[in-house]
């Protein structure tokens, strides 16, 4: 597990997001960049919290797209990687509060896997902050909205997913800007990273 991931595992949502502000604030704003973010939400808590945010008419950015799972325990590493390969700029899981999982421990497994994916991303030269685990109860509509806002802001700062080709946007340049030259020995590094993800996924599917 990376240091980041270890830290994140012991932090509250507020702390996680607050820490980001400090880290990410220094980064240049990506004017006009609207990130695509996938949220994996468990049926019992986080999905219900998102609905409650709706009932309460709490406003948050339009960037998050939800995929409902019975439990974040069902969230597989391969699904997280696939999201990046497909081009998502950020991915997070939202599960029940720790100790309150409807399926007893699913959210704890999810946290572990998110930590693992952070390590993989880092190895691939993708900022591990692009993936995160959050916890909330079904009564926390406000927390859902706040998380969506905070995470969108984070990804907005981190810029586009470097493995996704976009018109008028050089992914290699973007990665270099974020990670420094060392992370990207040559211009094809982004493609390499994308290919590596594909390889990991294919390997996973084979076994």
């Amino acid at each position, binding site marked *: 597990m990376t240091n980041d991931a270890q830290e994140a595992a012991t932090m509250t949502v507020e702390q996680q997001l607050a820490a980001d502000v400090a880290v990410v604030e220094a980064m240049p704003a990506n004017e006009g960049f609207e990130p695509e973010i996938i949220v994996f939400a468990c049926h019992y808590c986080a999905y219900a919290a998102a*609905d409650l945010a709706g009932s309460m008419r709490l406003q948050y950015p*339009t960037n998050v797209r939800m995929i409902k799972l019975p*439990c974040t325990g*069902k969230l597989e590493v391969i699904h997280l990687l696939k999201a990046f390969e497909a*081009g998502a700029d950020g991915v997070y899981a939202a599960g029940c509060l720790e100790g309150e999982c409807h399926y007893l421990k699913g959210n704890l497994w999810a946290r572990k896997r998110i930590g693992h994916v952070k390590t993989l991303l880092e190895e691939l030269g993708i900022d591990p902050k692009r993936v995160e685990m959050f916890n909330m*109860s079904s009564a926390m509509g406000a927390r859902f909205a706040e998380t969506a806002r905070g995470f969108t802001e984070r990804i907005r700062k981190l810029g586009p997913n470097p493995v996704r080709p976009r018109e008028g946007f050089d992914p290699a340049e973007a990665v270099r800007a974020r990670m420094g030259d060392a992370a990207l020995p040559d211009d094809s590094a982004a493609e390499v990273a994308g290919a590596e993800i594909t390889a990991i996924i294919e390997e*996973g*599917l084979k076994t």
Partner: protein
Amino acid sequence: MSSAAPERSVGAALVLGGGVAGMQCSLDLAEGGYKVYLVEKQPALGGHMAQLDKTFPTNDCAMCTIAPKLVEAGRHLNIEIMTNSELAALEGEPGNFTAKVTHDARYVDPAKCTSCGACAEVCPVVVPDSYNMGMAGRKATYKLYPQAIPNTYAVTKLGQSPCKLACPAATSAQGYVALVAAGRFKEAYKVAAEPNPFVSTCGRVCTASCEEACSRGDVEAPIAIRSLKRFVADWANENLPPPERAEIKFDEKVAIIGAGPSGLTAARDLALLGYKTTVFEAKPEAGGMLRFGIPEYRLPKAALQQDIDRVLGLGVELRVNQAAGKDFTVDSLLADGYQAVFLGVGLQGGRPLPIPGNDAKGVFTAVDLLRDITLERPIEIGKKVVVIGGGDVAFDAGRAVLRLGADEVTLVCIEDDESVPGSDEEREEGSDEGISLITSRMPTAVKTDSDGRVTGVEFSACVLGEPDARGWRPPVPVQNTQSELDCDTVVFATGQGLVADFMQGLEGVHVERNQIVFDKETHATGREGVFAGGDAAATGPWTAIEAVAAGRRAARSIHNYLRGEHLVAVMDKRKPEARPGEDILATLEVTPREVMPHIAGATRMRTWDEVSTGFSMEQAVAEAKRCLNCAICSECYECVHACGPGAFLHDEEDTEVDVSVGAVVLASGFDPTPLGSHGEYGYGRYPNILSALEYERMLSASGPNQGEVKRPSDGRHPKKVAFIQCVGSRDQDHDYCSSVCCMFANKQAMLTIDHEPDCKPTVFLMDMRAMGKGFDGFYQRALDMGVVYIRSRPSDIKEDPATGDALITWEDEAGQLHTDRYDMVVLSVGLEPSRRTQDAAGSLGIALNRHGFCQLEEYRPLDTSRPGVFVAGPFSEPKDIPDSVAQASAAAAQVMVSLAYSRGTLTAEKVYPVEKDVVGEEARVGVFVCHCGSNIASVIDVKGAAEYANSLPGVVCSNDTIYTCSSDSLARIKELVGEHDLNRVVVASCTPRTHEPIFQDTLREAGLNPFLFEMANIRDQASWVHRDEPEGATQKAKDLIRMSVARARELEPLYKIDVPLTHAAAVIGGGIAGMTAAAALGDMGYEVHLVERSEKLGGRVLEIDRTIKGSDPAEFVAALERRVLANPKVKVHMGANLTDFHGFIGNFASVIEGRDGARTPIEHGVVIIATGAKEDRPEVFGLGSSQKVVTGMDLEKLLAEDDPAVKDADSVGFMLCAGSLDENKGYCSRTCCAQSIKNAIRLKEQEPDRPVYIWFKEIRTAGLTEEYYTRARELGVVFTRYDNQERPLVTANGSVQVDFKDPYLNKRIEMPLDLLVLATPAVPNEGNEDLSKMLKVPLTADGFYLEAHVKLRPVDFASEGIFLCGSAHYPKGIEETISQAYAAAGRAAAILAKPALKAGGVVAEVDQDKCAACLTCVRICPYGVPSIESDTKKAKIEAAACQGCGICVSECPVKAIELHHYTDAQVFAKEEALIGEQV
């Protein structure tokens, strides 16, 4: 307990109370084969638990845990939910009751309501939200809380407001006032104009009986309703466009004679109904008396014309200068093709009094005078004018002649000062303008000069006589009181007459005493097709609003006539008058009525300018906000207009129904103790003093502050919060402990720190009653977090008025007084038994105990005094959620026992068509995009999204619907499935959490597998949360639809298969828990194996000599044993153990192994663990070193044998918590306080002078056991607290001596005793560990069994089909054990009642070809479901037991497991679709 009248019993039960206990009971019963009527007084289920933020001792989110229950209860085919309902009476016998259920109108049809919430958006009435304990507002049209089930809105309507009832035209005055208060003037105008086109006019000159009736008049002054009406009219005239022409829907034409208020109202209403109407008016302009009788300064012609223009704008034809009888006749109209004629003629003739000189020069009638002024005819008026009359017309005439140039105007009337008929306003304004008024004078003659010109009027003083038949009081002259007034002009304002020449000879229409004769209700005259209204058809000159009302009624009557319907009364529906209670009025702040600006008297008296200039917008809103919303629902009908599916039923009536049931369960819960009686703590006076439930809402993320803790007085975050325990418990009025408030306060104190880390909570308490499982650990956590506990009951709280802080005065244990300052105080309010059920107890025939709780007999914790009626939850005694839930399942079991023979007789099962086989077919997706009224469509381009969906691969049809879930839309989905041969369906609308089952059901009805359905949430997760970004929201909606279509194409049908089920149970343990559970299941007709390892049934309860109520438990045990042994279904295996257990829910197989080694294989569907607990004998306080130190159970034996060690003991001490609540055993054994107090009382009663001492850490006599604590103290038992820091020292060799610290004296005392009784802890029975391993069920750290969910599944294990009860779960008393045993039986029966188990659907399945048998899944499944098959040596997941979480799927290193409905292909499809093909 035996089955009553089995052959005739009804297979249904009524459960009263939709809280968590009622829901659990209903679910168990419905699953167990019974039809259930779930009766709830609120509009939604959930009870108090739905209001909680968190639940102790885990601090789980309450909503998370209760929401699935809500959904389950709401969806169950065999639970009929009756909300807004009350069980009023119960007749009949057990097995065959008739229950009378009253139902308060909901005013919304639940079958049509889609819960879109558009109604609440537009509702202008805001009232305190009871769900949020009044700390937030809600609308009159509301859903109790966002997750409420039934997921349906309701209207709070207390009747009708006094203002509406007082208005002749039934104007919803409260409605437009509320809309003005909300700043919604357009809607306000619509409401004001709905019954009355003369908004502008009546806003100026209405007699406003609404204001006379206004409740606010009882406070300081009524709402200025009329002025508000004028405000909205003036606003509308400036801001609203002219009306559109009304559509003509019928061929019939209607003629209206007279363009006054009644005629024009009738014309307008008929035009709106769809008739061509023509108004004939004799005068050159429309308006009738409004135009020709009311002077300009009071009603400007322009204002009147605005009203008239809005009528004419609808297409009403006006023909002026058309005099009836001259230019046309009624007959000619009928001949000209008018099918109906309305006579809206007024009283146009002025009538002077019949006195000498009434025809002199200079005499006018007011009617003629005012008419001539309007027509601008030349009028010769003198300088000194006398007006005869005191009504508004007299004032109008007097004030008008001033403006014509008169110098002096005097009004003379027959009425006395008190009864002058003119309005206060006219009198005041007249007086301002210099008009004098002389009362109690009747004119006797008009004096003239020789030319016949007026010179004066002669009067007599008079009094008013007795009223005649029509209510008129004739004046009676007083003898010899003649006087004379000089003047040159006299105006008679003394009456009007009908100029009805044209009616002469009109067949069938009669005129009597100046009035047209007509039917008062239908307005029909004697001539068919001819109707009448207005001043000429009334009991005398009327007011404008009454004329309007008459026109309205006549129009509806004419419509009925023309449509060939019966001419029936078409009066407005009236409901009882609603007024706010005295308590509300008494606490209102006085807010003066807004005064409308007007031109000063001296300035205005010579001009015709309008006197009053109208409210400003700010004034209007401020004035409207004074409204008290008497009826809550204002009947503005904004909701009706906003509701797309037409679900509102504002005329719904309250109803009463009889339901036939075999049994009844009272689960009606508690009411918080009202705080009025505890005024000493300042509740209600000091804003920073809250009740615990109020504070709970404040802590809740979905509460009024979204979880922010703030002082109500100033919004400041508190730094010191005090909790005061036992408010409304353990006092003179409540000699019981409310059981839950200590833990409630612990929880709230901890949550306070979570929310406000630098806040210091302090709890003032007498005892910490943490006697439940895990409660002491929870208390310890609170201590660790820094919560401060003070052992004191504060005597007084005062508010520091400067800061709003609370000053709490309290006494410490040494008797020292302290006063401390706190920012905020929370009162831990006690629980009282449901007041409604207490009130109904008489009609239900059940006895209550002295506290008002349900009267229960010992050993029968579920039976009320009426056979066939059972109880569950706090209505029996204060209890927490798990105890209530357990009791609920137990009551269900009791019902199942009593109705065993009628099981399954009334349950229904829905039949669906055969499902079409779609395997191998190419996906043909149908997409339905919902507008949800305007909920989605106001933000998202729904049509665009639907068109876009049509372009997606695999989509063969796409549709947009206003409400996709309305029944006609669902029918359309079914049609389209057939038409387009659809094999996948996607709905883009609200949330699958509430609506997926509805659509899946539609698929099944259409012959498709329900798993071929997919939903995109574009409301809760798009339109509602991106209101300000319509483009982004539309894009997101399209993305979500694209993702859903992509997944839909990958969906596969899933089938639930029937898994056979063994209808037998194994019960482990033959104590009272095991015996009770076995007997209950046996009585229900299931085979039971009761396995007891000893040679005797009864368990440890037999060691007790006498219960606290004085009975011998052995008798109860013997009876229970007879019941068990007598039942042929129950096989008792003595001296035996259960071994070789394997299998899964419904299909367990085990071996019963006797002590002799005999092995009996059994098959069973369920297991119940009832292995009990035992008393520990730790070597503390001298136990074991002296005969004089014994345990509680030892004492029972000594008492039973009347042993001299007790009998002759001169002093006895009890040491509570001996070896518990300490570092060894951190938990409370729950029963020993009561046991010790029971025996202390017995010892005192035997020998009152014998000193008895009790040393304790905590006294935990929860619930009604508190009485015995009170009794013990009354008998002189000495109670002394100790703690783990300063434990008493016991010296025990020959004698016993206790050395302890007296906290009050603050010094140590040595106390010699003859007997010391230790309350030692209860510990789990040996063998728990082995059994837990065999059954694969978990234990707690203390060695007791760990249930599936502390709150809502107290007798279940996470592994399906395994249950527990009794002290194996946690130490408990006899009644609790019986209750839990029934609960386990009830839960087990809910499984055994099924012919077969349904398995499959969203479950994990192993591909055994890939499986490497690595055991990962076996190890990590939280439910222990996967196993390695013995023959294949591969993992297998039993579908019937799988919970479908997918944890194993994600961890399987070789991806050999798949979770159906969440396959890789399905998840990848969504991910790829998001980015893949955007538009």
